[in-house]
């Protein structure tokens, strides 16, 4: 019993730590800031995972052209669009444009990173290493913090967000 409690407390502490880290982390390359890259825990058989982050370009126009990760067969950029009741997905094969002095957010329901052919599904709490390559600013190593499975968070917090 006591051991369970300790394990429980440990789990909560780990979650809090992971959450704390996840909220804060940021990367920088040249004039580009990469704020809070995060992903979601994947289901046991899922092969793809989304990645999200906020790109702030404080310099001249640039472009996120490619990405790689040892955890994925390939990494692509996709755009999700909701057209009425239809979800449309397409690959952005020329990458994601970052106009001068602008912020572009990769988020659920919009632009996002797609980790393809993931063999070992992402687990909540882990950090997934990846390299982003910008046309002008060059490459930068980042880590995507893995949060709960899509929908799971909303599921528990309905009363709160009332949405």
């Amino acid at each position, binding site marked *: 019993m006591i051991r369970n409690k300790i394990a429980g407390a440990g789990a909560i502490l780990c979650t809090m730590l992971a959450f704390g880290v996840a909220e804060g982390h940021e990367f920088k390359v040249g004039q580009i800031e990469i704020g809070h890259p995060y992903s979601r825990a994947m289901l046991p058989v899922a092969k793809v995972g989304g990645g999200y982050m906020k790109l702030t370009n404080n310099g001249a126009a640039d472009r996120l052209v490619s990405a790689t990760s040892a955890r994925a067969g390939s990494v692509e950029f996709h755009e999700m669009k909701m057209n*009425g*009741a239809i979800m449309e*997905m*397409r690959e952005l094969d020329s990458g994601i444009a970052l106009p001068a002095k602008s912020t572009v957010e990769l988020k659920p*329901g919009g632009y996002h990173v797609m980790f393809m052919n993931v063999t070992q599904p992402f687990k909540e709490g882990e950090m997934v290493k990846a390299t982003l390559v910008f046309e002008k600013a060059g490459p930068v190593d980042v880590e995507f913090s893995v949060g709960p499975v899509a*929908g799971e968070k909303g*599921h528990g917090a309905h009363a709160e967000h009332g949405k």
Partner: protein
Amino acid sequence: MKPKKPFMLVAGAISGIFVLALIGVMVLMTNDTPRSGRFGAAFSLVNDQGEAVDRSIFKGNPSLVYFGYTHCPEVCPTTLYEVAGYLDALGEDGLPLKTYLFTVDPERDTPEVMKGYVTAFSDRITGVTGKPEEMTKVIAGWKAFARKQPNPSGGYSMSHTMDLFLIGADGRLKGLIPYGADHNEAVEKIRATLL
């Protein structure tokens, strides 16, 4: 009297245009709404246990039907978690409900993949897959939408309807729950239309 006539004419013209526009919108909406009639298409698919599935699954029990796929990073897992939440919230009242995930990507979603996927959400969701041309019949039969979107760098994504279909025990569509619907409203809608 004179100035009144042109005004009447203009007013009449405006209301005429308005009525026409309204009719147009109504026609568009009717075309847009999945049919509320009976499901007519015959099809032959398999569930995640490899057992044969045909149109009789839409009869005898009310059901929640979703068209999604496992290579879907956001919308499908979110919806299926929501659905698991509806089933939890309904408790015993919801026991007559059957819940199905019809894959819009049957080429990659084998029965084994479907089994692993749906059971991650709930033991009450059944995956359905099979030959793509058979799946097309179900999708078209419910006036849902799915289209393969080739990726320039290889592979493909699927564009698809996000609504959850509420189907009565009589095999007729009773309503839709849109993506992002409020949990309580969705549960009430299921209660009101299916239970």
